[in-house]
C-alpha cells in the first residue's frame, strides 16, 4: 500500500490535487463556524445548486469559461439569501430551500432539453458529486488557489474580531457602529467564491459537508470561539488530506471520500465531547 502511495506521490498531478484540496478545505472551514452559528448551514447546499443551474446554462450557451457565468450568478444569490434571511418575511432556511431546489430542477431541465452531449447522466453526475478535474489541474490553477487562499486567510485574520461580533450579536454590533451589512455582504461573497471554486473537487451535492462537518465537530469539543475556529480549520485540513490519500489508494471518488472522513471525524468528536462533559 505504501508503495502504491509512493508511486502516486511522484506524479505532480497528485501533489497538485493534494495542495488544492487542502486549501479548499481550509477556506471553507474558516467561514463554516460563522455560517453554522448564523443558522445558514445549508447555504452551501443552496449556492452549490445555484452554481449547478448556472453551469447548465453556461454549458448550453457554449461558454468557453463557464466560471464567467457561474461566479456572478452564485454571488448574487448568496447576497439575496443572506439578506432575505435576515429581514424578510420568509425565513432563511425556507429561502435557501426554495432557491436550491428551484435551481437544481431548472439546471437539470435545461441540460436535458438542450445538451448536445451524449453522456448526459455522466455530466450531471459529475457536476453533482464532483468530477475528476481535480486530478487534471494545471500549475497556474494551483498557484491561483494558493494566492486566493492566502488572501482569504489574511482577510479572515484581519476581520476576525468583527466577524465574531457580527456573528454573536448583530444588534450590539450595529449599535457599536460596525457596518454589519458590509460584513454580511463580505461573508456571502466569499462563501459564493469558495463554493464555485470547490465545486470541481466535491461536486455541488457534497459541498455543504465541507462547510458544516468541521464546524460541528469542533463545537462538540471546544467552547470558545477561537478554539472552535482553529479546531475546525485543523480538522478540515487533516480530513481533506486523509480523504484524498485514501481515495487515491482505494480508487474511490475524491469528494465522497473526503466527506466520509469528515463524518467519521464528527463521530469521534461526538464521542469525545460526550464523555468529557
Amino acid at each position, binding site marked *: 500500500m505504501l508503495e502504491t502511495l509512493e508511486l502516486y506521490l511522484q506524479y505532480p498531478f497528485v501533489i497538485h490535487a493534494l495542495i488544492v484540496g487542502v486549501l479548499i478545505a481550509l477556506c471553507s472551514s474558516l467561514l463554516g463556524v460563522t455560517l453554522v452559528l448564523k443558522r445558514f448551514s445549508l447555504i452551501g447546499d443552496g449556492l452549490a445548486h445555484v452554481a449547478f443551474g448556472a453551469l447548465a446554462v453556461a454549458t448550453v450557451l457554449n461558454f468557453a469559461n463557464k466560471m464567467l457565468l457561474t461566479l456572478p450568478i452564485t454571488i448574487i444569490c448568496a447576497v439575496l439569501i443572506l439578506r432575505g434571511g435576515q429581514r424578510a418575511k420568509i425565513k432563511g432556511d425556507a429561502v435557501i430551500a426554495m432557491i436550491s431546489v428551484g435551481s437544481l430542477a431548472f439546471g437539470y431541465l435545461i441540460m436535458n432539453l438542450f445538451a448536445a452531449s451524449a453522456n448526459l447522466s455522466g455530466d450531471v453526475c459529475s457536476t453533482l458529486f464532483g468530477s475528476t478535474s481535480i486530478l487534471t489541474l494545471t500549475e497556474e490553477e494551483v498557484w491561483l488557489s494558493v494566492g486566493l487562499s492566502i488572501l482569504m486567510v489574511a482577510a479572515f485574520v484581519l476581520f476576525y474580531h468583527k466577524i465574531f461580533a457580527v456573528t454573536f450579536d448583530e444588534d450590539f454590533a450595529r*449599535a457599536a457602529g460596525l457596518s454589519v451589512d458590509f460584513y454580511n455582504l463580505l461573508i456571502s461573497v466569499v462563501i459564493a467564491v469558495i463554493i464555485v471554486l470547490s465545486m470541481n473537487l466535491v461536486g455541488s451535492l457534497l459541498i455543504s459537508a465541507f462547510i458544516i462537518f468541521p464546524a460541528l465537530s469542533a463545537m462538540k469539543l471546544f467552547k470558545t470561539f477561537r478554539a472552535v475556529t482553529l479546531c475546525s480549520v485543523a480538522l478540515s485540513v487533516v480530513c481533506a488530506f486523509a480523504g484524498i490519500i485514501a481515495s487515491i489508494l482505494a480508487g474511490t471518488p475524491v469528494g465522497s471520500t473526503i466527506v466520509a472522513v469528515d463524518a467519521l471525524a464528527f463521530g469521534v468528536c461526538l464521542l469525545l465531547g460526550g464523555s468529557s462533559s
Partner: protein
Amino acid sequence: MISCQNVALGYGARVVVEDLSFTVDAGDYLCVVGENGAGKSTLVKTLLGLQKPLRGKISLDGITAGDIGYLPQQTQIQKDFPASVEEIVLSGCLARKKFLPFYSAEDKATSARHMELLKIKSLARRCFRELSGGQQQRVLLARALCAAKKILLLDEPIAGLDPEAAADMYKIISELNRRGTTIIMISHDVDEAVKYATHILRLGDKIFFGTSEDFRHA
C-alpha cells in the same frame, strides 16, 4: 445631547408610541418606565438607530456609534454559541476600533477592569452558554460598559439579578453617572428609579417627561 420632537415609534403600520418629545443632556440619568409593551425597548432601539422612527425627528448631538454602550433586553444569542466570557466582554471594545484589526493592551485592561467591577473575573474563561441567567446578564453589562464612552443605554439591566447584585448594579451605574457618563435606563422598579435618576420618562397612555422631583409630586 439627544432630542426627540413629536416622534412616533412603531413597526411598519403599527404605531406603538405617538407624539413623544423629550431631551437628554450630557450627564443626565434618565429612567424610562412603563408597563409591558409600552414601547420602552422600541424607544431604545430607535435611539440606537436599529430602526427608524415612523414620524418626527431624533437628533443625536456629539455622539457617534463608538461612544454608546448598549445592553439589550433579550438578545437572540443562540443557546449553542461557543464563546468565552472574555471574548464577549472584549467585543465591547470594538466600537472604538474602526480600522484596527486587533485588541490593544489598553482594551484588555479596560475589559479586565469591568469584569472585576461586575465580579465576573473568575468566569473569564468559562463558556457563556453555560452560565446562569444572572451571570449572563453581568457579562453583557460588562460588554456594554466597555463600549460606553459617553452614554450607556440599558434595557432592564437588573432583570434576573439577585437583590445584592441589583443593589451593586445601581451603585455602579450611578457612580458611572457621577463620573460623567450619560445614562438611559429602562426599569420596572419605579421606586429605585426615582431614587437614582435625574429624569423620568413614562411611556403608556399618559406620557410623562420631567425631573424625578416632579415625577414624585405628580
